[in-house]
């Protein structure tokens, strides 16, 4: 009871501070018990990428917990591309379906967030910062929590996990001393080891990230990437990127006549010995792969000393969500210390937390410290600097340009 009172009090204070009185359908976030009551019995359709078994398993655990604690039924709608959930909401808006929409919660960031924000497809701003568990969130040290791909989040989406680009190799097969330390060296390495490096074709998220990493390193002025692209200089700005790819492709896996599907596909290819260097957006993917018996225990990871891309991924609620309260409750649960701890555990997912250790109660802090990250995971201080994501306008154009050059079959 005491805890509940505290929670209500905390929520009330936060809501008061942020000046948020109510959200769309008149649901008062300050009255969290009312949210919990309204949520009970709701079914939350959580639209989330479904291509990874451990993530799906994690979401099932979330579903079971939500059911047991709050009587909320969380159903994962497995997407192969988040864009299709965005499309669904757009379709509903154009059909005038402003209530009872089919998407309640979306796993989102970057372009998709920017596009939904621009078109007013998200639940009124401020809800995320009013969640009771927001008090644990690490807004001080993780700037990407408040700015998603240069787009201010404005409480329109709630952080869910961190991401950083990390490379993996098998030390039994690949000489650790010859590993590249930046994009240019990676190209040299690929030339010396033809057919052993590739990247997933965009619009795959990890593949697009690789393009952004290279662009950040080869563009004449990286500061340009923090702003929307300029039409007049776009061609010239991205020329070094495509010059890089033009050199990489002839020596890439299958001569770049086809590309790996996504990260799990690259992981299989590392195990098969088809690829020698792969990368992921999650530092503990290698250790998780070893634990799951998918990768040999000789796999290790590295990053670039000059920095690699990093960002945060979020959950957002569409403006017309049917189970709004259930979605709020789920978003809040996702940033609870318990859910975040399980998420960072490589056994279940291994995704870096968005919570600040300093804000956590002592037992939770200890539990995080006790996590075994595995042999293939670099310690947080070995991960190197973070390169910020470019403004989302860049990626959209680059993907189109990429398709035009490499995937039109001409």
């Amino acid at each position, binding site marked *: 009871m005491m805890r509940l009172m505290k929670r209500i009090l905390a929520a009330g204070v936060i809501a008061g501070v942020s000046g948020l009185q109510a959200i769309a359908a008149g649901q008062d976030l300050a009255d969290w018990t009312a949210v919990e009551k309204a949520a009970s019995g709701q079914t939350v359709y959580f*639209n989330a990428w479904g291509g990874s*078994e451990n993530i799906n398993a994690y979401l099932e655990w979330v579903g079971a917990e939500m059911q047991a604690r709050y009587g909320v039924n969380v159903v994962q709608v497995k997407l192969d591309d988040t864009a299709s959930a965005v*499309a669904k909401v*757009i379709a509903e808006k154009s*059909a005038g379906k402003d209530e009872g929409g089919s998407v309640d919660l979306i796993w989102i960031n970057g372009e998709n967030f920017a596009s939904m924000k621009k078109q007013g497809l998200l639940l009124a701003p401020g809800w995320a910062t009013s969640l009771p568990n927001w008090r644990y969130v690490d807004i001080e040290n993780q700037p990407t929590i408040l700015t998603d791909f240069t787009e201010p989040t404005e409480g329109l989406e709630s952080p869910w996990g961190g991401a950083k680009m990390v490379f993996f190799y098998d030390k039994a097969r690949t000489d650790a001393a010859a590993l590249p330390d930046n994009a240019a060296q990676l190209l040299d390495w690929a030339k010396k080891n033809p057919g052993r490096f590739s990247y997933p074709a965009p619009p795959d998220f990890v593949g697009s990230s690789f393009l952004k990493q290279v662009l950040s390193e080869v563009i004449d002025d990286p500061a340009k990437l923090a702003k929307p692209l300029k039409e007049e200089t776009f061609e010239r700005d991205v020329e070094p990127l495509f010059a890089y790819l033009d050199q990489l492709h002839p020596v890439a896996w299958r001569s770049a006549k086809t590309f790996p599907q996504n990260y*799990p*596909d690259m992981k299989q290819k590392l195990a098969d010995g088809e690829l020698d260097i792969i990368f992921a957006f999650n530092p503990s993917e290698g250790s998780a792969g070893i634990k799951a018996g998918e990768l040999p225990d000789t796999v290790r990871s590295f990053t670039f000393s000059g920095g690699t891309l990093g960002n945060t991924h979020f959950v957002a609620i569409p403006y017309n969500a049917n189970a709004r309260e259930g979605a709020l409750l789920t978003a809040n649960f996702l940033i609870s210390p318990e859910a975040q701890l399980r998420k960072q555990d490589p056994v279940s997912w291994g995704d870096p937390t968005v919570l600040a250790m300093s804000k956590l109660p002592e037992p939770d802090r200890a539990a995080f410290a006790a996590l075994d990250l595995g042999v293939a995971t670099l310690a947080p201080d070995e991960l190197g600097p973070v390169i910020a994501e470019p403004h989302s306008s860049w990626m959209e154009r680059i993907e189109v340009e990429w398709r035009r050059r490499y995937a039109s079959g001409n």
Partner: protein
Amino acid sequence: MTALLPRSVVVLTLGLLLLPITFGLFGTLLPAFGFFPALGGHALSLDPFRELLATPGLPTAVVLSVATGLGATVISLGVTLIFVASYAGTPTLSRLQHLLSPLLAVPHAAAAFGFAFLIAPSGFLIRLVAPLVGIDRPPDVLIPHDPMGLTMIAGLVIKETPFLFLVTLAALPQVDLPAARRLAASFGYGRIAGFVYLLWPALYRQMRFAVYAVIAYSSSVVDVALILGPNLPGTLATRLVQWMNDADLSARLLASAGAVLQLAVTLGVLLAWFGLERLFAILLRVSRETGRRFVRDRFPRLASILVVGLIGAAVFAGLAVLAMWSLAGLWQFPDLLPQSFTLRSWMNALPRVADPLVTTLVTGFASTLLAVLLAVGCLVRENQTGRTGGEKALLMLYLPLIVPQVTFVFGLQLLFIGSGSEQRLAALVLVHLVFVLPYVFLSLADPWRALDRRYEIIATGLGRSRFAVLVSIRLPMLVRPILTAAAVGFAVSVGQYLPTLLIGEGRLSTITTEAVALASGNNRRVIGVYALLQTILPFLAFALAVLLPAVLHRNRRDMRV
């Protein structure tokens, strides 16, 4: 009353087959010409087609669809023809029939996965020879997904050849094989030549709709193309599905225009096939009239049995490799066997499989039950009127299999969304029914028609009503073929990918949609689990179809088979 009921069953059946296709085609055509109110398109225009034609790589996609459609059909039918011509009437044929029939129950996607696991550069076949030729790293060769679609054609051939083979066998009793064999042999013709000259034209006439279905399927398939086909760019059908799922909703207009193009492409391939039919007929006539006897046909005969054997082996070996991957711990190249076996993939998957499994079962049972009821109703009506409906009825039955799925299921999806209905499961069952019904009817019709009608005449003579005769005599006697037809229908439902994907909209997933979705992650262990589940379900249905009659008839000696 009993007369009225079957008549309305016929009307209902035709409606359930033809209306979805008609409405679906309209639902595709209107947006293709720019009419899609939800997106603000109220006026007809050619813009979607202009946009379609401006799509980079479109010619490649079209050529790929045509090539895979024609290639897979020519090879499958050629192999079937030469094999049946060589071995019809011999014990070899009946032995292989028992081996190949189960292949029909293997869903396309599962067969394609197994095939991919065999032939990939890190696949099982190369591991077999790797130690001998000193390969320790997978070669950098582009299969599957080769740009010419050869892997995809091969994948289609291993699934379509058994189908055409069994269709040919079903038609074979309609021709007088022994007499023709004797005649051809006494005039000194080779086995193959004699069969092709004397029997093939009549045989082909019986099975040509099945061949058209193979053509239409091969030129518009999505799941096999995703697993084995080229992907940079893919075939037309796979690109349609991408556009349909594009975040930019206006891409749906493009997708609809593309679906119309897909229809044109499939019609084009069919027309090309008609041309090939003519050409073959002329060649056959010329060859016959010039008296060429092709006496020495040992080589093609042996080659055909080799190819058929390879096809069977490829599917079974593929399934075996799938099974092994589903149980594998770490399994690195070039090891022939995994370092360890574990049940983890199954333990992880099974709880997650529950929902898709229930949807698969419910949809399969419901659509099969409806299909069996409708088919029985139509056949009862046929008995009453004595009319089979002939060619026209047969064409209507094959229509859902010949019109490419992508072209009308798109339209159905748009109509379904537009209707605002929440009855997704009912819609899914109805869409499956469109594809299940033809197969159920086709497999039930022959045994139904073959049953000696004198049993019923006697019973009617003894004063039993038609209904009582149906329930107490005909249906019990036909319980086996009915259950077999139901198993075929269930297998067809389990294998449906595209209709489930589009109508289910991600809310309703089946084992098949899960398997293909997981394929994008290329986690071989998980794919192995799902593809095996996908295969086990139809096999269970067929096993039930064999076991149930045995149990039902355990105290009736003469009904045992």
